[in-house]
């Protein structure tokens, strides 16, 4: 479903080149729920942004359903982003001039969908994420967690079959986190959507089928859920401890 082959990406600042992604290679199958973990600055956001082609990659291949999306025409890319892809930004990226409700609608409006069905599906999502009471507020007037849930809802509105989420539970309490994870699992089960999620939270990650651990822009390890969730969680915590630096979060 999603194949990333030998992906390279570097940034240039003050004429010095920083390699952020180095020879990243992985495959995700249809309907798989995969998490990416790794220390801060290891390139997780960069990886997500290159997969969606928000930033161009230097080298390598990104195949979506067997088709390369690198060098795709703008309009085709726009179509994929709108219909097939749900993206949750680390910093939400809500439009300040639109209400929560309108923000969630946006992908449907862009696709020129039927208004009646749109309103009902937005309302359903609002209920699901417990943000119905704020749906007529503007982003400046709601909390960080509420913004995050709005952003997740917006990513799900078009029933995408690939969800790319950058720390979608970063600002949330455990109950709201569970809601988001549930929503992803729902999408996975009902629409056999593929989910690729960056997270620092081992608990959330333990709901995934697989976890890619990124370190210094390389896949350091790949962990698979073999038995049950609690064992997987232990495995995750152990691996992260090996990596060092992130102990505090998980003790």
């Amino acid at each position: 479903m999603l194949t990333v082959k030998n992906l390279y990406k570097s940034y240039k600042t003050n004429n010095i080149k920083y390699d952020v992604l180095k020879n990243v290679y992985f495959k995700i199958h249809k309907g798989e729920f995969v998490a990416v973990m790794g220390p801060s600055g290891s390139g997780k956001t960069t990886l997500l942004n290159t997969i969606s082609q928000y930033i161009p990659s230097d080298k390598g291949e990104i195949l979506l359903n067997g088709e390369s999306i690198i060098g795709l025409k703008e309009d085709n890319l726009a179509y994929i982003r709108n219909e097939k892809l749900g993206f949750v930004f680390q910093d939400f990226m809500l439009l300040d001039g639109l209400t929560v409700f309108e923000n969630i609608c946006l992908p449907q409006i862009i696709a020129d969908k039927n208004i009646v069905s749109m309103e009902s599906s937005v309302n359903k999502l609002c209920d699901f994420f417990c943000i119905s009471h704020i749906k007529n507020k503007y982003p400046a007037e709601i909390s960080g967690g509420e913004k995050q849930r709005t952003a997740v809802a917006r990513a799900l509105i078009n029933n995408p079959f690939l969800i790319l989420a950058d720390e979608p539970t970063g600002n949330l309490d455990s109950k709201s986190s569970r809601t988001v994870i549930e929503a992803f699992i729902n999408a996975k089960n009902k629409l056999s959507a593929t989910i690729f999620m960056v997270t620092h939270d081992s608990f959330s990650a333990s709901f995934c089928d697989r976890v890619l651990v990124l370190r210094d822009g390389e896949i350091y390890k790949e962990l698979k859920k073999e038995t049950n969730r609690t064992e997987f969680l232990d495995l995750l915590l152990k691996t992260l401890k090996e990596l060092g630096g992130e102990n505090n979060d998980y003790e």
Partner: protein
Amino acid sequence: MTMNNIYSKLRSKNIKNYYILIFCKILSIVLVTSYAVMFLSPTVQNVFPKHGDSTKQAYLIFGIAIIGCALFTSYASSLFLKYKSKETGILLSLGTKKSHIKKVLFTELLLITFTSSVIGLVLSIPISYGIWKLFQFFIIDTREMVYHIGWFGMVFGIIFCLFVTLCNFTMAIRFINRTNLMDILNENKKSEIVKSIKSWFGTVGVIFIIIGMFLGYGIPILSIRVFNFLMPSIWNITYLLSIVGIYMVITFVVVHSKKGKSSKKYYKNIIPKSMMKFIGKQTVRNMCVLSLLICGALFASFYTPAVISSIFYSFYNNPYDYSFHYKITENQVTKDEIYSLAEKHAVNITSYKEIQSISLIVNGVKANFENNGKITYDYIDKIGYSEFFSVSHFNRVSKQNVNLKSGEYMTIIGFESAENIHKRFDDLNIVTNPTNDVTKKMDYKKTITFQPFVKEGTTKYVISNKDYNKYLKDLSKENIENFVLFNVENPEKTYAFAKELKNEIIKRSSKKSAVNPYYDEYAKKIALEKGRNYYPYNYVVDLSTDNNSLFTNWKYYPSFGVLNRQDIMKNMSVFLLLFIYIAVICLTAIGIISYTRSVTIAINNKTLFESLKRLGANNKHIEKCIKVQLKKIFVVPTIVGSTVTYLFYFFIMYGNSGNVTPSEYLGLKIDFGIIILISIFMYLIYKLSFRKVKKIVEI
């Protein structure tokens, strides 16, 4: 809900940014077009010498002003795009087609451009007319000059509109065509850091500024003086070195922070300093533009005091308030008539003097400009007439006490006289008696200052009594002139008397004396003998009392201080108007650019200030952070711009005459006052910006 609803909602949320852009565009178009309309109006063009220095200066400064206007509209549109960047990025990331966004953005821009162009172009006509009227009302009465609209200026305005539109669209296209969507999303956080620089950077910058000026202005003058070589105009490129110097100095001031002696101070200012560094490149570029615009504004405003100070200086320092001259063959106003006229006007005449001069043929030098830039000189033994006074007559009138031996001469100069490539004070070597063609060698003794005898066209000399009387004996009356000089009590209040006397002089003058200041009997004779055309001869002066051009065009135009001042002001008024207007354009651009820059800084650093607040910084501390930054933006360009211009003006004055004449000195003093005024202007804009910034960062 449709996409159109979304767009209109976003638009109404950001309507202020649209208004700002429209306002800036209208303003720049109005300024440029109304200036062009005025500058190209037949009324103004008639006054402008076709290839004079003032014309060149007017074009140069107008160029700066146009660049300033173009820049501030492009700043406004980049600010506009900055505000738009987040929404554009989000819409793109959610899968809106780029072509669709382009269509919407370009339609908006087109609409903005079209409305503001039309409004701007239409407004500029009444505004240029209004400014003319205002000027007429306040500065000088130019009633005889009927203002005709320079319709060609509209073409200029339209070209400017197109140019600005092109710039805006290029910016928009570059903005939207980036493939890196994150760049678009984060456009308003984008910054280019200036790398740290060495401490010599500032010093080298200062040296570059000075060398640039010296190369650009000094070398051409020296090359003419020393090598008789006229530099090609491409040489002006060396001024660029000064601009590089300005850039270096400003970069240095923005970025350089020395830990050095007071490390306490270093840490105290570390936050604003590092913030400056972070927005460095754009800020530096901005400040350079501001400095250049301040240079433009000052340069334009310095023109006025230079002119006015020379008028006032010669008015108040001229030993005689009234003087005129005529050939003794003329039937001119007599002493008695002058006195009775004075009585009629209740004017008290003091120190009335008359003095005669004789016209002799002198040698001279003709400078030729070759095509290769080299200047060659022709030395001509008999070039034309000059007037000579006897030393005792001269002493009596000028209240000086000089002595001359036979065969010696002194050159009479004025306060502002200077040697140049056409004329040196000791050019005279040979004098020829026009009656018998006998030549005599003369020796230069020195110069002597006596303003009333200085007039455009000829140089006057003083010779010994013996030589004078010898020549006088065989000269015909045609070669003798009478000079009348006198003072009056309260010269400023004698306007009516001066006017009537002037009119009387004009009425009494014969057709024969209706000649141009450069007209020379001898040169004419030679030209006609050789079958050549003699230009000043063809020039017919219309001797009527209401001919305003007599002041510049008539050889015998009387020099009455109280009238001259008016005449010169009238003659200069159009120049003044244009230069003042350009200064206004530059100042407008300065105001808008520095204001928008301050706002940009506020927007860029809003989150930083918020975190500082969370870190426990109180409003006062944040206020200080902002102040340190804003101050740099305002203070540095003001200082750099005014220092550079002042220096350059000093350079020009010195270069013009090899020294600073008293009136130039007065002009420099007034210029200093202008610098203070512009500093006050900058301070006001600073206050305004500071208020706005405080509002944006919510303190």
